[in-house]
C-alpha cells in the first residue's frame, strides 16, 4: 500500500514537472527571490561561498562532538556519555571533520580562487560544479539525520567490518554512513574532475603549467588524488551497502568472506585522502608565505615536483595503517620504507618555505600568522608520522592516542591552519573587505595555544598506554591529569572558533571596501576588482611570467595586459536541475536507509530521468554585453 502511494505521488510529481502543470504564479515568486538565485547558481564564486557556509556549519557540529568527547574523558570512569553513544560521537566527529569540513572548506577556496588564478571566466563544468556542491550538502544532511532519527553510525570513521555489519551494529546507523558518504563521494568525484578539466583546458594565454601558482598546482594534484582515490571508497561502500541491505557476503567469515578486503579498500582511499586534504593547504601556505615575505617562492620547480611526488607516493603506502593486521614482515617492511620516502618531498617543501622567508620582509598579518604557525606544527605532525611508519614502533603506537595526536597535528596544524590562513587572505577578494586583524590575532593565538595544549600531551597519553576510541580509563592508570589538560585545550579552541565567528560578523558590520590588491599580491586574482565581478575578467589577461601580476607591477604596469579585446562575455545560465537531480539521490539514499527498496529505486530513477532531461536541455548560456561590463568595472573602481 505504502509503495503504491509512493509510486502515485511520484508519478504526479514527475508529470507536474515535465508538463509544467504546476502553480506558475508561485513558481514565479520563487524565481524572483534571492534564494532562488543562490540555489540555481552555477557561478563558481557563489558555489565556493556556499561550500564555505556548509563546511563552517559542519565544523561547529564536529567541534561540538569533539568537545563532548573531551568532556567525557575529563575524569576517569565518567559516565556522561558511554558505550555505543560514545562510539557514535567519535565516528561522527571523525567522519564529519574529514568529509564535511576539511574537504568542503578546501573546495570553497578552490572554487573561489583557482579560476581567478589561472585567468579563467569559469570552470570547465559549471553545472557539474553545482551538482558537486549539492551532493556534499545532501550527503552531510543525510549522515546527520542519524542524530535525529537515533542510531548514528558507531564503527569509527574507518567503519571496519564486522562491527559495521548488521550483526554487530544493529539498526540503521551504519547505513547513514554508507549512503551519506556515497552521495557526498559522487559530488567530490565530480568536483575533482571539474577542477582537473578546468586547470588543464581553461588556462589563459601564457599561463603554462610551470607558471601556475602553487595553490592551483596543489589543487590540481589533490583533484587527481580524488580522481583515483575516491573510486576505491565508492567500491567499498557498495560492498558494505550490498552486505547490509541485500544480504551479500563479502565480509562474513561464515559465508566465505573476508573482512580485510574492506580494510584495504578503505585505506587505498584513506591514505590518499589525507593528502587530498593537506596538499591544497600546502598551496595556500606557499601563496601566503610568498606574498607576506614579498619574495618569490623559493625553489618553485622543486615545489611543483615535490607535490607531484607526494601525490604519487601517496598511493603506494596505504598499508601503513594495517601494520598490525598480520600481513607479514615482508609486506610490512615494504610499506614501511615506501612510507618513509614521503618525508623527503615533504621536507623539500618545508625548507623551501623557510627559505622563502629568508631574506624577505615578513609582515605578520593574521593569514601569515597561521602560515607561520603551520610550519613547526606540521613538521611535528610529520615527524610523528615517520615514527608511525616503523612497524616495530607502530605495534606500540597503533590505535593509541599517539596516533590521535599525530593526525590532529597534520589535520589541524596542516589543513585547518591552511584553511584559516586562506580565508583571512582571500576574504577581501571574495567579499570586498578584510576580516578584522585585531580579532584575527586573538583568534590565532587562542587557537594555536589551545591546539598545542590539547594535542601535544596526547602523544604521551598514547605512549602511557591509553588506546584510542575508549570512553573511559581507570583512576589507577595515571592518565587523569594529562587528559584534563587536553580537555582544557579543547575548550580554548572552542573559544577561538567562536571568536572567528564573531570576527566574521564584526567585520561585515564594520566593513571598509578595499581595492584590487590589499596585500600587495603576486598572482592574477589580485589584478581584478574586489569583490571579483561575476564574469571574473573583463578581458582575459596575458601571462608573461611566474607571479604574473607581480611581474607587471614590477614593470610599472597597474594592470595585466589583456589577451583579447573587450567584447561580449559568454556566461552559463542558472539552472535548477543540479539540486533536483541531487534531490533524487537524497531521496534514494533515505529510502535505502529506511530499508525501503522501492523508495530507493524510485529516487534513483527520478535522478536519472532528470539527467536525461538535462541532456535534452538546450543550454547555450547568455552574453554580457560590453557596455554592461564597462558599467560594472567603472562602478567597482569608483
Amino acid at each position, binding site marked *: 500500500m505504502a509503495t503504491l502511494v509512493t509510486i502515485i505521488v511520484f508519478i504526479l510529481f514527475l508529470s507536474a514537472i515535465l508538463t509544467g502543470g504546476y502553480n506558475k504564479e508561485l513558481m514565479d515568486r520563487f524565481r524572483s527571490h534571492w534564494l532562488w538565485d543562490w540555489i540555481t547558481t552555477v557561478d563558481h564564486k557563489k558555489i565556493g561561498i556556499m561550500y564555505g557556509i556548509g563546511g563552517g556549519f559542519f565544523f561547529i557540529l564536529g567541534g561540538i562532538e569533539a568537545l563532548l568527547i573531551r568532556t567525557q574523558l575529563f575524569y576517569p570512569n565518567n559516565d556522561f556519555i558511554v558505550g555505543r553513544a560514545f562510539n557514535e560521537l567519535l565516528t561522527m566527529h571523525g567522519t564529519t571533520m574529514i568529509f564535511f569540513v576539511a574537504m568542503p572548506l578546501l573546495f570553497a577556496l578552490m572554487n573561489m580562487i583557482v579560476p581567478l588564478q589561472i585567468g579563467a571566466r569559469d570552470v570547465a563544468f559549471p553545472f557539474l560544479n553545482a551538482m558537486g556542491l549539492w551532493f556534499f550538502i545532501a550527503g552531510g544532511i543525510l549522515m546527520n539525520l542519524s542524530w535525529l532519527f537515533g542510531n548514528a553510525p558507531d564503527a569509527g570513521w574507518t567503519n571496519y567490518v564486522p562491527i559495521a555489519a548488521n550483526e554487530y551494529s544493529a539498526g540503521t546507523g551504519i547505513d547513514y554512513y554508507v549512503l551519506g558518504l556515497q552521495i557526498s563521494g559522487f559530488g567530490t568525484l565530480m568536483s575533482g574532475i571539474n577542477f582537473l578539466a578546468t586547470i*588543464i583546458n581553461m588556462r589563459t594565454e601564457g599561463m603554462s603549467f610551470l607558471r601556475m601558482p602553487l595553490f592551483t598546482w596543489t589543487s590540481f594534484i589533490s583533484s587527481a588524488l580524488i580522481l583515483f582515490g575516491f573510486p576505491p571508497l565508492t567500491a567499498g561502500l557498495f560492498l558494505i551497502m550490498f552486505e547490509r541491505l541485500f544480504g551479500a557476503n563479502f565480509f562474513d567469515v561464515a559465508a566465505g568472506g573476508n573482512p580485510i578486503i574492506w580494510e*584495504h579498500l578503505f585505506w*587505498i582511499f584513506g591514505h590518499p585522502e589525507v593528502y587530498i586534504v593537506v596538499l591544497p593547504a600546502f598551496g595556500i601556505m606557499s601563496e601566503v608565505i610568498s606574498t607576506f615575505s614579498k619574495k618569490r617562492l623559493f625553489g618553485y620547480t622543486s615545489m611543483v615536483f615535490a607535490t607531484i611526488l607526494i601525490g604519487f607516493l601517496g598511493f603506494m603506502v596505504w598499508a601503513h595503517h594495517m601494520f598490525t593486521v598480520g600481513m607479514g614482515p615482508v609486506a610490512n617492511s615494504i610499506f614501511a620504507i615506501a612510507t618513509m620516502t614521503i618525508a623527503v618531498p615533504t621536507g623539500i617543501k618545508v625548507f623551501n618555505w623557510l627559505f622563502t622567508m629568508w631574506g624577505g620582509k615578513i609582515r605578520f598579518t593574521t593569514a601569515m600568522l597561521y602560515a607561520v604557525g603551520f610550519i613547526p606544527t606540521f613538521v611535528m605532525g610529520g615527524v610523528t608520522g615517520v615514527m608511525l611508519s616503523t612497524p616495530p614502533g607502530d605495534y606500540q603506537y597503533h590505535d593509541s592516542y599517539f596516533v590521535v595526536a599525530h593526525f590532529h597535528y597534520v589535520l589541524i596544524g596542516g589543513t585547518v591552519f591552511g584553511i584559516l590562513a586562506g580565508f583571512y587572505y582571500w576574504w577581501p577578494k571574495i567579499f570586498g573587505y578584510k576580516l578584522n586583524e585585531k580579532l584575527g590575532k586573538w583568534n590565532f593565538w587562542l587557537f594555536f595555544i589551545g591546539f598545542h595544549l590539547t594535542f601535544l600531551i596526547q602523544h604521551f597519553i598514547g605512549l602511557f598506554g591509553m588506546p584510542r576510541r575508549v570512553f573511559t580509563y581507570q583512576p589507577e592508570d595515571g592518565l587523569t591529569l594529562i587528559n584534563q589538560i587536553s580537555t582544557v585545550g579543547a575548550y580554548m579552541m572552542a573559544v577561538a572558533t567562536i571568536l572567528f565567528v564573531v570576527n566574521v560578523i564584526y567585520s561585515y558590520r564594520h566593513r571598509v571596501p578595499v581595492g584590487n590588491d590589499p596585500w600587495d599580491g603576486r598572482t592574477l586574482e589580485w589584478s581584478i576588482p574586489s569583490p571579483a565581478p561575476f564574469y571574473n575578467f573583463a578581458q582575459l589577461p596575458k601571462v608573461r611570467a611566474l607571479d604574473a601580476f607581480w611581474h607587471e607591477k614590477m614593470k610599472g604596469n597597474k594592470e595585466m595586459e589583456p589577451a583579447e579585446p573587450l567584447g561580449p562575455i559568454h556566461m552559463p545560465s542558472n539552472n535548477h536541475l543540479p539540486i533536483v537531480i541531487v534531490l533524487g539521490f537524497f531521496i534514494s539514499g533515505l529510502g535505502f536507509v529506511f530499508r525501503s527498496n522501492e523508495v530507493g529505486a524510485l529516487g534513483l530513477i527520478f535522478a536519472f530521468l532528470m539527467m536525461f532531461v538535462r541532456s535534452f536541455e538546450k543550454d547555450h548560456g547568455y552574453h554580457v554585453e560590453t557596455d554592461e561590463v564597462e558599467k560594472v568595472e567603472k562602478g567597482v573602481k569608483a
Partner: protein
Amino acid sequence: MEQAKPQQESQATESDAKHLASFAVMIVLTAIAFAAVTMDIVPPAMVVPLIIGLAAIQVMMQFFTFMHLDFKKHRITVTFIFTGLLFGVICVVALKYLV
C-alpha cells in the same frame, strides 16, 4: 594545453577500412585467448600470462584506434589513463595477494 585549436589534418587517416582491420585483429586475439583455455595448445603454466597479455594488447588497441587516443596530441589524457591503470593494477594485486 590540451587541444588548443581544432585539428585541421585530413580525415583520410580515419578510414572505415583501418578500423575494420583492427577489429579483425581484436577478434583474432580473442579467439586465441578462448582457444588457449579450451584447447590443449599451450603449456598450462603459460595460459594465464598469455591471456592476460592478450587482453592488455586488446585494451591498448581499443584506446589508440577506437577511442582515438593519440599519444602525442593528448599527452595529459594519456598520463591520467595510464596512472589510473597503474593504480588499478596495484589495487588488484593488493587484494589478491594481501588479503
